[in-house]
């Protein structure tokens, strides 16, 4: 089992300069969607942070979420795993197998009881006693309940763990449910998406590490920093929507000109996620940038709400009026987002005070 010394001690022992550490903190601020000026406060908090134990359970899933995490660029997965967290069990990534792997999980659960973070990807099948997905002869339900009992908090990674996902699609043959349908007595953070944006997974872990608490969540348990606005709100094609410029087919003049994909079924206006700014594949782009509408994969039931190519329902009024209404709604959402802690951050910046960790926590 690893020693849980502070990050500052480990970096100093490795000969990492303070300047390198500050650069790392600047990257962390970007990743956590915090103001870039908060890097100094992050540095102060991280210097004293201890490495939390993490147990990752994979249930009824396709391993796409793990694939996503292993393509996380900032910081690298290696540094996340070896410097920031102690990943004590992940049956896809760990070298150990069989009894040795299960033993590692048991030991971590015992040693860090009440303190470890439990990450779950995949839904949990309940039908027929849970026989449709088992690990080492035990049902997913049994394993989840045991690991959840000693967890400080649970992170449901991906739309399956967060909302039931594709296994939950009608007629739901295995009786698949989300983590939050089973566990009621622990804080649960949902990082939805199919798969979720890798940087968002690492950012939530980094937030927990930096502040010792989970970030602010929306009404579906998702971190507001990444799910607080819709794809549409942050889309670079949004001005086309405002101007009423819509592609009518995937190969018409409008599509070639990069016009709005709303009429081709884009679910951007109803989908909360950070794809439009955080982007994918090391920042290369996101679906709309590649000319395809958003599928809405971070929203509950996206798999059962009709065709990906049917436009979202709009009022009978002409689309320009609707666009204006949407713009107003966007403005209202922005006002709601300006919570007290944001105001405090701005006041601090105005009066040139240094941000503290408690400011960022919203205390």
């Amino acid at each position: 089992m690893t020693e849980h010394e502070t990050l500052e001690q480990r970096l100093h022992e490795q000969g990492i300069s303070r300047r390198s550490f500050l650069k790392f903190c600047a990257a962390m601020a970007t990743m956590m969607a915090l103001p870039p000026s908060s890097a100094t406060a992050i540095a102060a908090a991280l210097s004293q942070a201890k490495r939390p134990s993490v147990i990752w359970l994979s249930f009824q899933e396709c391993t796409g979420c793990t694939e996503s995490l292993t393509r996380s660029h900032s910081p690298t997965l290696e540094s996340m795993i070896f410097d920031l967290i102690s990943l004590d069990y992940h049956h896809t990534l760990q070298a150990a197998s069989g009894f040795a792997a299960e033993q590692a999980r048991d030991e971590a659960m015992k040693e860090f009881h009440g303190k470890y973070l439990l990450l779950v990807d995949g839904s949990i099948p309940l039908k027929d006693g849970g026989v449709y997905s088992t690990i080492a002869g035990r049902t997913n339900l049994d394993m989840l309940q045991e690991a959840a009992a000693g967890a400080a908090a649970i992170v449901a990674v991906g739309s399956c763990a967060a909302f039931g996902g594709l296994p939950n699609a009608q007629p739901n043959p295995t009786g698949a449910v989300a983590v939050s349908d089973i566990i009621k007595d622990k804080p649960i953070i949902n990082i939805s998406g199919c798969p979720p944006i890798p940087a968002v997974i690492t950012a939530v872990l980094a937030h927990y590490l930096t502040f010792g608490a989970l970030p602010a969540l929306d009404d579906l348990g998702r971190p507001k920093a990444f799910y607080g606005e819709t794809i549409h709100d942050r889309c670079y094609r949004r001005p086309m929507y405002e101007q009423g410029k819509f592609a009518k087919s995937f190969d018409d003049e409008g599509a070639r000109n990069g016009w709005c994909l709303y009429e081709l079924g884009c679910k951007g206006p109803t989908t909360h996620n950070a794809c439009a700014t955080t982007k994918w594949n090391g920042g290369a782009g996101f679906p709309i940038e590649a000319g395809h509408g958003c599928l809405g994969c971070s929203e509950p039931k996206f798999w059962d709400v009709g065709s990906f190519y049917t436009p979202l329902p709009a009022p009978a009024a002409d689309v320009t009026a609707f666009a204006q209404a949407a713009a107003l709604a966007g403005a209202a959402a922005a006002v709601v987002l300006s919570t007290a802690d944001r105001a405090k951050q701005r006041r601090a910046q105005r009066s040139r005070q240094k941000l503290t960790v408690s400011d960022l926590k919203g205390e």
Partner: protein
Amino acid sequence: MSLDDISIKVADLHSIGSVDALLNEIATRLQRFVTTGETALIDLKGLPFSPAEYEGLRTMLGRGEISARLEAIGDSELYETHYPGVWWVTHYNVEGDVIADLLEIAAVPAILHSQPEDVQDGLERLQHTLSQNK
């Protein structure tokens, strides 16, 4: 065959407006820096730019007299733009991926300053070397 026969078009950046909006923001921050000395950071990764707009911003800001390269857990590129006091700071990780992309309004980007902890470490190393040579 002329250029007009090719279906790909150069995007009209001004019709979208995001670059103009950011340039106004930079001007406001720069004015504040001139008046009060307050520095500022703008996180470009948090802004919704198309690739064409991003390149457009680079062109608009241009390059000034100074550039610097930092080698610390991967490279970092820093250069002053055509507008003195406006620095473009890009941090890469060891694999060469961009991990932070910032505009910094300051006389010198903060990360270029020697850090007191590093100076102290260096001083101890130098004193140790001198004591070995005696």
